[in-house]
């Protein structure tokens, strides 16, 4: 089941992934004046972009918790006051359904504070992905590659 909380966490995880790929550029994109967009294509490639630049990263690990095959994700963030952003997100699934969500969040708080559950979850996710990759490399070596 995909509910509101899972969708919200997925949005935050996507931002965390961008942040972990390139902290400097993500901060520049997110905190630049104006709006920015986050998109994920069916192959899991994600982009976060604004007038300040564009960053490409892998977004599929953040989408796994939704438990459904994603076709596309499109999230538009609109800047408000004090780094508060309102957003409209649209998740399109391969099974004749989509989920849209509107809300708001404080972007500066999200990307600069890493003590919350969300950040811990993102770090765990990254660590697990790294561990999986390390295991895969090990298996490849064992198999003679």
């Amino acid at each position, binding site marked *: 089941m995909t509910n509101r909380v899972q969708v919200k966490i997925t949005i935050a995880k996507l931002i965390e992934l961008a942040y972990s790929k390139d902290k400097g550029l993500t901060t520049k994109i997110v905190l630049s004046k104006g709006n920015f967009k986050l998109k994920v294509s069916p192959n899991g490639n994600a982009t976060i972009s604004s007038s300040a630049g564009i960053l490409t990263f892998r977004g599929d690990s953040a989408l796994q918790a939704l438990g459904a095959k994603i076709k596309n994700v499109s999230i538009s963030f609109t800047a408000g006051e004090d780094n508060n952003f309102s957003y409209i997100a649209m998740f399109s699934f391969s099974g*004749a359904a989509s989920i*849209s969500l509107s809300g708001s969040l404080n972007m500066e708080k999200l990307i600069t504070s890493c003590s919350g559950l969300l950040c811990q979850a993102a770090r765990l996710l990254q660590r697990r992905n790294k561990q999986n990759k390390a295991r895969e490399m090990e298996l490849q070596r064992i198999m003679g590659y």
Partner: protein
Amino acid sequence: MKNIVLVLGIILLNSCAAISENVALYPIYKSFISSLGEKEHKKSFEMLSSKNQNNLLKSSSIKQFSNHYPVLSSLNTVLLKEIEHFENISSKNGCLTVNGFDSSKEPTSINLEFIKENNKWKLDYTQIMYHGSNKEFPIIATCPARL
């Protein structure tokens, strides 16, 4: 006398057809929700458009309904409380919007698009809308947005 009976018969048939064409979408939605709740996958499957049915059968079986359609198959758990619904039927499709509140007691809508196949309304696409405030509730039937 025979002619009168024939004319009455034709009028009766026409009126039945008209009733059939104007079947409201909301009872169909409720029936779909009920089939999901009772895990009657065959019934849920038969309420889908042929495109969606073929899509499922292409890669799996009716038993895999929930796995293949994880969002559609959880529609019965989205709205804990319904407050209103709107529907609009055109020559091409029928759209139904159901407003209510989710398990977090926050405003949520479900938009459903039906298409007519063999004179029956079949579910073609669904959108769950998690709103930020009650002001965002649609006040007319809204067809689901597709990316």
